[in-house]
Each structure stands twice: as structure tokens, then as C-alpha cells.
């Protein structure tokens, strides 16, 4: 990024960008192609996501109880076994995954919006605004998230919306930091300075110029943010302050599984493994994206 020639005219810059994108994509693709772990994990991620998405179309009922066949081990009929009420665990895992992924995506979008606003405003305006905002970021990111999130959850009615909001509200700091740095670089460029000189409003500058330029960074950050949102949700649900019955997520399924672990360890293994796969894959994806965002960095070299 910083390597952009300072003398390049806006037009020239614009002309050059598609070409750069192309090489970036190529770099990312080649990084991906040579990383077997990435291929396998992304393939698994794709399978999990697709299965969760199409779950309602499948002949599965996650809520049909069958007490006579409770806690049945995995078999041909119930490939993941059944839970304590005889509900098909495969169906529950898929429906639980929908909740986990939905919360992850929406919480990530929430934190993205806040992070971008704070980051661009701080980066563009600088001075006292920047100092205050960054101080807030510092403090917020060092207060233990679990404490913050649980405290705030007291004030909200339990439900999906609150969990999404709570996670989103306390996970935007990293994105804000990245976007701020990016903004500081971009605003030095001629086309942005030119726009500002022409009296274009800061909001317009942000939307028209800064965000598009910072997009690769934002996309990269969002995959990492998605992974951590899924992790946060599952921890909260595991502690019993997240998703509530009758809805269940992978985290709350693990909470239930605690009680049945001794004889029915599959109940604990399956949702946990899915969490690991999904988070691992999103982190991998983030690393590959990073190559795309910043070709100087080879896969996974910088946090």
C-alpha cells in the first residue's frame, strides 16, 4: 500500500488498480493452491455452511421428540445419534449451526459497521477526536470481553438480537484500528486531498474514496472477526447466557452435552468439532485474504 508512487495522478491511479487487483488475486490464489490444509478446511467449511443453509429443505425435524429412543448412539437411522429427548442429533446440529453462523455473520456485520465508522472518522479527522476514540478502543479492548458482554446482556431481553448486538458492540475495536491506519495512509494520497480541497464533505470522502480503498483490509478483518464472533457466541451459550431454548446453537448443545458426556461423548464431540472446523477455516480464509489485501505479506505472516 505504502509503496504507491506519491506523484501518481488520480486517473493514473485508477487505471492501475485493476491490474493490481489481478496480481493480488493471483497471489492469493497461488498461496491457497499450495496450502493443502487451507484447501481441506475451506472445503469442509463449504460443506458445513451449505448443509446448514439447506437444512430446512431436508426431511429433518430437529424438534420431534422420541423419548423411547433417547440417547441412542449414532446409527444408520440417526447418523449423529439422538439427544436426551430422542431428537435427531444430526438435525439439531444443522439447525444449531444455522444459529451459530447467523449470529456470527450478523455480529460481524455489526462490528464491521462500528469499526469502519470509528476507524475512518478517527483516521480522517485526527487530532483530539482521534485521541479520544483510540483511547476508548484501548480501554475497551483490554477489559475482559466476557465481563463486558455478560454485564450488558443483563440489560437486554434474552434473544437472538441481543446476543448479536452484544457481541457486535464489543468486538469492533480491532477493525477500527486497522481501518484507521489504512485511512491515515489513504488520506495522504492526492485524490483524497483533492476531494477534500474541493469541499467534499468528510462523509462523502469516507464513502466514495476511503472505504473502497480500504476494502481489502476490511474484508480480511471481517473473516477474522467472523471467527471470533462464532467463538464468543458459543462461549456465552455454553455458560448459559447466550442462545436460549428452544433455540440451540453449537455452544448451547455443548452445555447440554456436559451432562451426558460420560456415556454419550458423541454429543460433546460433534458440535465442538464443528466449531473448531468453522473457526479454523475462517481464520485460514483470513490469512489468504491478507495476501490479497497486502501482497507484501505472504500467507499468515502478520497478525
Amino acid at each position, binding site marked *: 500500500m505504502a509503496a504507491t508512487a506519491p506523484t501518481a495522478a488520480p486517473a493514473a491511479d485508477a487505471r492501475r488498480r485493476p491490474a493490481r487487483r489481478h496480481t493480488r488475486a493471483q497471489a492469493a490464489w497461488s498461496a491457497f493452491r499450495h496450502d493443502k*490444509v487451507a484447501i481441506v478446511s475451506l472445503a469442509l467449511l463449504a460443506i458445513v455452511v451449505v448443509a446448514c443453509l439447506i437444512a430446512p429443505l431436508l426431511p429433518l425435524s430437529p424438534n420431534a421428540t422420541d423419548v423411547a429412543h433417547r440417547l441412542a448412539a449414532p446409527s444408520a437411522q440417526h447418523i449423529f445419534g439422538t439427544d436426551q429427548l430422542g431428537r435427531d442429533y444430526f438435525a439439531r446440529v444443522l439447525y444449531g449451526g444455522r444459529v451459530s453462523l447467523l449470529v456470527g455473520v450478523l455480529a460481524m456485520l455489526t462490528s464491521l459497521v462500528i469499526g469502519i465508522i470509528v476507524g475512518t472518522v478517527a483516521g480522517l479527522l485526527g487530532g483530539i477526536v482521534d485521541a479520544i476514540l483510540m483511547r476508548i478502543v*484501548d*480501554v475497551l479492548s*483490554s*477489559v*475482559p470481553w*466476557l*465481563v463486558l458482554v*455478560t*454485564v450488558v*446482556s*443483563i*440489560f437486554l431481553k434474552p434473544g437472538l438480537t441481543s446476543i448479536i448486538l452484544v457481541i457486535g458492540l464489543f468486538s469492533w475495536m480491532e477493525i477500527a484500528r486497522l481501518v484507521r491506519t489504512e485511512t491515515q495512509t489513504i488520506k495522504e494520497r492526492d485524490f483524497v486531498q483533492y476531494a477534500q480541497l474541493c469541499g467534499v464533505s468528510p462523509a462523502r470522502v469516507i464513502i466514495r474514496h476511503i472505504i473502497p480503498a480500504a476494502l481489502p483490509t476490511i474484508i480480511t478483518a471481517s473473516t477474522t472477526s467472523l*471467527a471470533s464472533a462464532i*467463538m464468543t457466541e*458459543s*462461549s456465552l451459550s*455454553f*455458560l*448459559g*447466557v447466550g442462545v436460549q431454548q428452544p433455540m440451540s446453537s453449537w*455452544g448451547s448443545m*455443548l452445555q447440554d*452435552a*456436559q451432562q451426558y*458426556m*460420560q456415556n454419550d*461423548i458423541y454429543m*460433546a464431540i460433534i458440535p*465442538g468439532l464443528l*466449531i*473448531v*472446523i468453522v*473457526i*479454523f477455516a475462517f*481464520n*485460514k480464509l483470513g490469512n489468504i485474504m491478507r495476501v490479497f489485501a497486502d501482497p507484501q505479506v505472504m500467507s*499468515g*505472516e*502478520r*497478525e
Partner: protein
Amino acid sequence: MAKYIARRLLIAIPLLLLISIIVFLLMRAAPYDAIDAMTTPKMSEETIAAIKAQYGYDQPVWVQYFAWLGGLLQGNFGYSIVTKSSIAEQLAVRIPNTILLVLPSYLVAYVTAIVLGLVAGSHRGSRLDHVIDGIASVLIAVPSFWLAMLLIFVFGYLLRALPIVGMQTVGDGSFVDVLRHYILPFVTLTIAFLPDNLRYVRSSTITQITQDYVMVQEAFGAKRAEIMFRHVCRNVLGPVLTRLGMALPMLVTGAIITETIFSWPGVGPYFMTAIKGMDYPIVMAILILSSTLVIIGNLLADVLNALADPRIRQGGAR
């Protein structure tokens, strides 16, 4: 230097006051108050008024705030709504238990992370690096509670090798017994703390190694070990050291999940019970305590940073 620290301290105090006001107002705004918990509909007006007076809820809000703040400064954190017990006394027992668990596991994770991170970073791209980085990226994706569950299943249920409840067996309580209880939560926490630090050390090592000065030194024929030890290590460890300061709040709230799973009698289960029972005074006390540690931790990090980098002392820039 003293001047720098004094200035940072002066900034910290209003910040702490601000936090205390926010926390206090938050709890006042809570949907369910302490009086609701202590009274029943059958009580007479006088009894309810007497209870309010006893706990100071008949005073104006600002009087209550200063009374609460004054109490805090004297180490009186108030009483639990649910159990009516003194919060300070509880914390005095529980915080040491938490520290006993968090401090050693954080330090072990920290030292391991530095060693592995330096090794991996300096042999970037090698098989060793791939293995270390691979382990870190897998561990980062493993929820600590799931890891704890697996450990409980294997060592508690399958092998029956280790106890999984609490800190000691009552009636035994020998050192060996405490140690046996200690192993699983300790391992869980160490693994939970490790990958973040490891990746941080590894990536800063890589950043350092690709710096021009290393190439220059190499060009001048310096030995690799010498470069690593003399320059890279020093430059990597500076920021890593400041991370230690930032980790201060961990001493209180660093093991909430792990403690809850293993029934470790620390702050974690106390906090979770308070959250679920809407026991605001406890939540408030822990929130204040951890934000204070955050501020102190940041201060500590800044000071460490300043000590490591003389330029900051003069400029005062962060």
C-alpha cells in the same frame, strides 16, 4: 521518567472515576433492584422502608454514589443481594484462588510462547515452523470449554486418573491432592493462553528478521545466533513485555470459563452465579475491579514500554 509516570497516573484517576460513575449508573438502571430481592409483597410499608434505610436506598442517587465510592476506597464492596454476605470477604478468598490458577498458567504459556515463537519465527518456512504455526492455528480455533470437556472425559471418566472437582478433596487436602486437582484446569488455561501469544511473538520475530539491519549484519558476517540473541530477541521482547502489563486483569477474570467447568473456587463461578441471579452489587464490584486493573495494566504497559524505548520518555507519544 518519574514525571512521565506521574502524568500517566494523573490521566488514569479521572478515567477511573468516570468508570465508577458509569458502572454505578448502569446498575441503577438495571431492570430489577436490590429492594425487589429483599422484600416480599406481604411485608408492611414500614418493614420495606426500614430495609431501604438499612441499605441506604432512601438517599438521593448522588449520596448513594459517594457512599458506595467511599466504601470502595475503604475496601468495602458492599453486600450481595442474594446471600447478604460481604463481597469483600468473598473476594478475599476467591481472588487468591484465581491467581493461583491464572498466574502460573499464564507465565508458562507466556514463556513457552516466547521460546516457540522465536524458534518458529527465526526458522520461517521450515518444517519446524510449519508444525509450530499449525499447532497454534488449531489451538486458536479450539474453544477452551470444549478442551476442558475433552480433558475431563479422558482423564476423569476414561482413565479415572485425575479429579475434576474443585481445588482439594475435603479431609485430604495434602499438597499432592491439591496438585492433582490443579493439573486439568492448569493445562486447559495454559493451552488457552498459548496460541495468541505464540503467534504474536512469531510474527514480530519475522518482522524483525526481515528488517534491513539484520541483512546488514549478515552482510557483515555476523553469526546468525549472535544476531538473534543480540538484536532480534531484544526488539521482539520489548513489545512482548508490554503484553504482560496488559494481561493484568486476567488475574481476576482470566479463568471464568475454566473455573466454572472445574468448580474451581475462584472468581469465575462467583461471577457467573451473580450474573444469573442478577446480583448487581457483586457484578458491579467485579466490573470495577477488572476495569481498575485494566487501567493499571495499561499504565504498567506504558511504563514498561517507556523503559524499553527511551524515545517515548522524551516525546511522550504513544
